[in-house]
């Protein structure tokens, strides 16, 4: 039966319902486990095959040799499209995608994350020039 204002009952009921808006940034939605966010690199697992560099669609990752069987990775988050192909291509599981998505920076240089290895002895440390440090794992002020 055609009548104008068909949605009126639903609309009036909405007044009593909680709004559907998530009040970001006061409230943050938790992303599912598979969410493809920031990329992190484990230098102790890398063997330098550079398959990730070959398969990256945007040339976002560079692997550089810094010592005997030790490699560092520079990931340009401005280029990274978070597709995760490098994670799938790596045979040694040296790359991992986290669920962190708040990656905005004020300067272009701080978008380049360098994950490097300490000279022999101390184990892996990631250095990135982010003004504020958050995210778990190995990020340290660089």
């Amino acid at each position, binding site marked *: *039966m*055609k*009548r*104008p*204002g*068909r*949605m009126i009952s*639903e*609309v009036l009921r909405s007044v009593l319902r909680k709004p*559907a808006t998530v009040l970001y940034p006061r409230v943050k939605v938790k*992303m*599912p486990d*598979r*969410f*493809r966010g920031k990329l992190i690199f484990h230098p102790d697992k890398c063997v330098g095959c550079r398959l990730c*560099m*070959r*398969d*990256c*669609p945007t*040339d976002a990752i560079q692997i550089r040799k810094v010592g005997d069987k030790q490699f560092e990775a520079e990931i340009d988050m401005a*280029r990274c*499209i*978070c*597709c*995760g*192909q490098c994670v*799938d291509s790596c045979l040694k599981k040296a790359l991992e*995608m986290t669920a962190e998505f708040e990656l905005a920076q004020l300067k272009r240089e701080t978008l380049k994350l360098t994950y490097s290895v300490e000279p022999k002895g101390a184990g892996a440390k990631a250095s990135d020039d982010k003004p504020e440090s958050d995210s778990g794992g190995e990020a340290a002020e660089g």
Partner: protein
Amino acid sequence: MHDRENIRIPIGPQHPALKEPTSFSLALDGERILQAGVRLGYNHRGIEKGCEERTYIQALYLVERICGICSHSHATCFCMAVEEIAGIEVPKRAVYIRTLVAELERVHSHLLWLGVAGHEIGFDTLLMYTWRDRETVMDLLALLTGNRVNYGINTFGGVRRDVNPEQKVAVLKGMDLLEERTKYYITVALEETTLIERLSGVGMLSHDDVLRLGAIGPTGRASDVKRDTRKDDPYAAYGEMPFNVITSDHCDVYGRTLVRVGELMESYKMIRWLVNNLPEGPIAVKFPRKVPAGEAFMRYEAPRGEDVHYVRANGTDRPERVKVRAPTLANVQAVAHMLKDGYLADLPIVVAAIDPCFSCTDRLIAVADAHGLQPGVLTWEQVRRHGIEWYRRRGVDFTRLNSTFRCGESG
């Protein structure tokens, strides 16, 4: 410019009615449109050329980003074409997961369309409600694939992520919620007077017009033309899955609304069937880096219509030629016909009714001889120099742009 009889107004390239830049040049007599001219090409990004310079796996991610809403359509179509050239058979489980994501994408696209149609006719409440419900689908897709748009679930030889039982339960629950909401929208579409008044009799396209102008997808199915690539040329899991093709005989925008809402209900049934009948097995097989020479032509039913990909391989790890024909290119021919003798007030909804996705559509067909350049294939350097010169002639200097990216040189 005015003359006694009519005025000529531009709609676009920037206009609140258009979600993507297109140029309509209308000759108006008061509120009546006498003639409409369409210009495309504002969204051209050189994707086909970009694919030639990248390896297959890199090109897959580029093809996926042709469009945000039909990204999975393009990626799957490309994958299937390359797999056909290489002659690799994809495992059943991967095929079903691809189809599951495809139907979820169709749900997402149609809900988005309902909202956009509501907004174009001034019915903002419908926009808010349908986009709120669309969040359910996007959360499901993020759960399954890892991203809300541009899913990246395809890889050559199968899919990249598997579906586990908790995700299946979440998908079924999401479908129950969405089915109830869609039933409500169907009642609103059938009963709300102002909606029916705005959508009926607008954008008329008869059965013969559809066949003559080549309109496809829900645009054509609303004029009782029963063409659906999923039934005519089954691919993926569609050959084994039972479903109906929804048509309507209204031949106008109202018919397109009914067709899309009907397809939503069919998609919910299909998703439930796929989740309950997911076969066991591996999710991917090994795929060679160098694809043997050959060519393949693949058709796919995107939410907007039939999407066509042509791929030619020459034995290296880069495709030689990729050609994409998006459904909107076929439907946009019908728009100029539908706008004629219509009202200016109907232009937004008529354009929105074909569900335009001009990002998909803008592909370069031929290189014209402009400013002394030889017709034919241009290299990257030539195209870049031509662009810089063009802008310098207009007073904008791009020579100091720090773009040092050279595609294809990383491997």
